[in-house]
C-alpha cells in the first residue's frame, strides 16, 4: 500500500540554524499539508499546498517558514532560523480527492537546543 514518507525521523539542531524537513507524498495525490504537534498537545495545521502554491496557512506559519515542491516527488518544509519553541513533531500529509482522506507520514521529531 502506498504511504507518505518523511526524512529525517529525528533532527537535532541549534537555535538559529536552518532546517529542512522532507516528505514524499503518495504519488497520485495533489494536495499536501504540514502539521505540527508539540509534545503532549494537539495536532496543529501549518500550511496546505496545491498546484505549486500555498492554498492556506495558519498564524504559526510566519516568515520563518517556507514550503517547496522542488521536483515531482518531494515536498519540503524549511524553518530559516529555528527557535526553542519550534521543537515539535512535524507531520506531512497528502490527500486525494477520491475520498478526502489525508494520509500522514510517520513524522519528523525536531529538537531545537
Amino acid at each position, binding site marked *: 500500500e502506498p504511504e507518505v514518507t518523511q526524512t529525517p525521523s529525528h533532527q537535532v539542531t541549534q537555535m538559529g540554524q536552518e532546517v529542512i524537513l522532507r516528505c514524499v507524498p503518495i504519488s497520485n495525490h*495533489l*494536495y499536501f*499539508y504540514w*502539521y505540527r*504537534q508539540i509534545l503532549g*498537545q*494537539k*495536532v*496543529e*495545521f501549518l500550511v*496546505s499546498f*496545491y498546484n505549486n502554491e500555498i*492554498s*492556506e496557512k*495558519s498564524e504559526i506559519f510566519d516568515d520563518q517558514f517556507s514550503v517547496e515542491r522542488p521536483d515531482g516527488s518531494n515536498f519540503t518544509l524549511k524553518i530559516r532560523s529555528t527557535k526553542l519553541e519550534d521543537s515539535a*513533531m512535524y*507531520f506531512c*500529509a497528502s*490527500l486525494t*480527492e477520491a*475520498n*478526502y*482522506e*489525508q*494520509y*500522514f507520514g*510517520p*513524522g519528523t*521529531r525536531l529538537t531545537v537546543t
Partner: protein
Amino acid sequence: AQTVTQSQPEMSVQEAETVTLSCTYDTSENNYYLFWYKQPPSRQMILVIRQEAYKQQNATENRFSVNFQKAAKSFSLKISDSQLGDTAMYFCAFTQQGAQKLVFGQGTRLTINP
C-alpha cells in the same frame, strides 16, 4: 472558525470491554467530513474511521463504529471488544468539504488494561 472538543483527557478500560470516546464540534457548514485518528506511542497518525456529514448512516470499521448526531454536532467513537493494541491517543478531526485542513481536538488518551 471550526472547533473540535474532546472532553475526556484520559480513559481506561479492561481488555474486551467496550469504550466510547466523545467528540463535539462547531461549524456553520452543512457539508463536511469527520475523522478519528489513532496515535500510538510511535506517534504515527493512523486513520481509524471517517464519516461524511451528508450520510445518515453511522460508519463502522470492524470493532470501531461512530455515533454521528449532526443536529447535536456530536461524533463519538465506540470501540468494541477492546484490545491491548488499542492503547493510544485518539484524536477527533474535522474538515470542510473539499481538500481543506484538518482541525483536531485535544485528544483522549485511552489505556486498555489486561
